[in-house]
Each structure stands twice: as structure tokens, then as C-alpha cells.
């Protein structure tokens, strides 16, 4: 019986979990976080290229979701809602960073890259990965906001065009145009790596 209950719990959709969380069930929210936190951390990382602060910002995203759980409309897909909140937060963060320019280039290089076992990796590979990571980040950063969001959501978060359209607040056709335009610009910016 317990197995059945736990199985049915794992089969619960995000919406069902959110509805439970809405009634004050924190375990449902924990399950939602467990499903999505890695994606959100990486999404934030694509915007900031700052691994040290990505988790803090991702926590801020979930905190906002948690605080506004009562306002959740079950018609919207949870991930759409989640990435909408994350996008707003990331854009605000990027703008404030651009103003402050507090993160130095060295600091950025230090914070770039994954949290994997870098000691076991070939140093030249690690250097290349950092270099290409920074180049891609800079290339994406130079794109207009919507193109950048569309590419990150499609490429790195694997979101379908429909969902990306909802997050950005435009049509599916517009998303495709943003992705296409961004892609064309990236060819120019990353030419040396092609």
C-alpha cells in the first residue's frame, strides 16, 4: 500500500503538486523543487555565468514561487510559470550587474564552469571549456534580450516553442524568428570556433 502511495505521489503532475502546495503542503513544494531546481540553477547560470551565485539566485526564484503559490493559476503549466519568474529575476539581475559592474573579469573567470571534479580533468580541456563557455556567454549576452531568452530556453532548457512563447509573451512564430535571428548573429560572433 505504501509503495502504491509513494508511486502515485511520484506520478503526480506539477500542477497537482502545486495545488497541494497551495493548501500549505510543503512536501509537495519540496517535490516540485526536486524536479526543477537543477534546471533553474543552470538557467540562471546561462544568464550570469556566475556559478557561485547561481544557486542563490535559483533559491530566490523558488522563494518567489513559494511566496506566490496562492496566486498560482492551474491553467498555466508550472514550468512556464517557473521560468517566467526566473526570467524576470535574471533580467533584473543582469541589468543591476551591468550597472554595478561589480564582478571583475578575473572573478568571472574564476566563477565560470561547472562544479564537477575539475582536479581529475586535463588542464588544457578545462581551460578550453572555460574559454568556450565565456565566449558563448559573451556572444549570448550581446544578443537582444528576447533572442537571448529564446535561445537559452530552447537550447539549454529544452522547452518547446509553445512554452517559450508563453514565457516571453509572444507568438510561436515570433519565438522561431528570435531563435533564427539570434543564431545568425551567433555565427558572426563565434566564427573563430566554427
Amino acid at each position, binding site marked *: 500500500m505504501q509503495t502504491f502511495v509513494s508511486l502515485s505521489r511520484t506520478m503526480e503532475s506539477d500542477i497537482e503538486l502545486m495545488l497541494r502546495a497551495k493548501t500549505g503542503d510543503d512536501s509537495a513544494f519540496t517535490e516540485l523543487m526536486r524536479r526543477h531546481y537543477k534546471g533553474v540553477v*543552470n538557467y540562471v547560470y546561462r544568464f550570469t555565468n556566475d556559478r557561485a551565485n547561481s544557486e542563490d539566485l535559483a533559491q530566490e526564484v523558488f522563494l518567489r514561487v513559494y511566496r506566490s503559490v496562492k496566486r498560482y493559476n492551474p491553467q498555466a503549466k508550472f514550468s512556464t510559470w517557473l521560468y517566467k519568474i526566473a526570467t524576470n529575476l535574471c533580467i533584473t539581475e543582469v541589468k543591476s550587474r551591468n550597472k554595478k559592474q561589480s564582478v571583475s573579469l578575473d572573478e568571472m573567470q574564476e566563477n565560470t564552469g561547472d562544479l564537477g571534479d575539475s582536479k581529475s580533468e586535463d588542464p588544457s580541456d578545462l581551460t578550453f571549456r572555460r574559454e568556450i563557455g565565456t565566449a558563448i556567454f559573451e556572444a549570448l549576452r550581446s544578443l537582444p534580450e528576447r533572442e537571448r531568452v529564446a535561445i537559452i530556453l530552447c537550447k539549454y532548457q529544452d522547452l518547446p516553442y509553445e512554452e517559450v512563447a508563453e514565457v516571453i509573451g509572444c507568438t510561436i512564430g515570433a519565438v522561431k524568428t528570435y531563435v533564427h535571428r539570434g543564431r545568425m548573429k551567433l*555565427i558572426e560572433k563565434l566564427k573563430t570556433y566554427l
Partner: protein
Amino acid sequence: MGCEKIKELILHYSEGDLNQSDKLEFEKHLKECKECNIYFEQSHKVWNLLDNWHTVQTKNDFIPRFWDRVTTEDKKKVNVFDFFRNLRVNLVSGGVGVIILILVVFLVNILVSHRENIVFTEEDRSDEELLIEFDRSITKETAESLEIYGPWDVREPQSNDEEIEENKGG
């Protein structure tokens, strides 16, 4: 189809959005146009190149840290509410205290002033009595000292007209 149109259709072709005739025309153009062919290849290469920016590995304590954060923020929130709740209670009790203090001061003031008036009246009466007695003794002394000029006229003062008629008659 021109080269610009072909470049615009790259994504739609890759997504399978083109109808059969457009698709054939697109493929035909790519075979014939070297520039567009390179552009098409680069479009795919750049998309694949993005995979080289690896994901970050998250720490395992993300969820416990989140709940710790929620608890900390809730405590802060409660403290703020407590402050305002206490502030309200303090304001009410403080207000009541001030009102009571004002009433006490007012009543004490009334009582004290009333008492002072009584004391003043008694003192004033004794002073008045003393003054009257003193006046009498002075009057008596003066009358006696003036007796050398004749008897002291103790009549009531008259009006000027009566005095004139009396002088005429006299």
C-alpha cells in the same frame, strides 16, 4: 528564392515547417549556392557549438538550504509583525497611561488650588481682623491727639450743597 529568403528559411527547414514545394526549392538552392550552403552548415555548427558550454553541477543541499532560508525569512517576518503588534499595544497602553497621568495632574491641581484658597481665606480673615483692630487703635489715637482743637466731629460727611446752605444760614 533568393539567398536572403533562403537564410530566413533555414530554421523553418530544420524544424520541418516548410511545405513540400518550398522544401524542394530550398534544397535545390543549397546545392547550387555555395554561400548559402556554408551558411546553412554554420547555422547547425553554431547550434551544436552551444553544447560546449556545460551545465553546472548543483550542490546536494539545495533543498534543505531553501527551507532554512524560508524559516529564517519567516522568523524575520514574525519579528517585524511582533514589533508592530507590540507597537500597537504599547501605543494603546502608553496612551491610556498618558490620559491617566493628565487626569491625575488635573485632579491634583484642582484639589491643591482649592486647598490653597481655603488657607488664603482664613489667613486673609485674620489679617483683616488685625488690620481693622489696628485701624481702630490708630483712629482712636488720632482722635485723642486732635482733641486739643476741639471736639472731634463724628458726623457723617455731607454733600457740598448742604454745606453751602449751612454756611449761608450760619
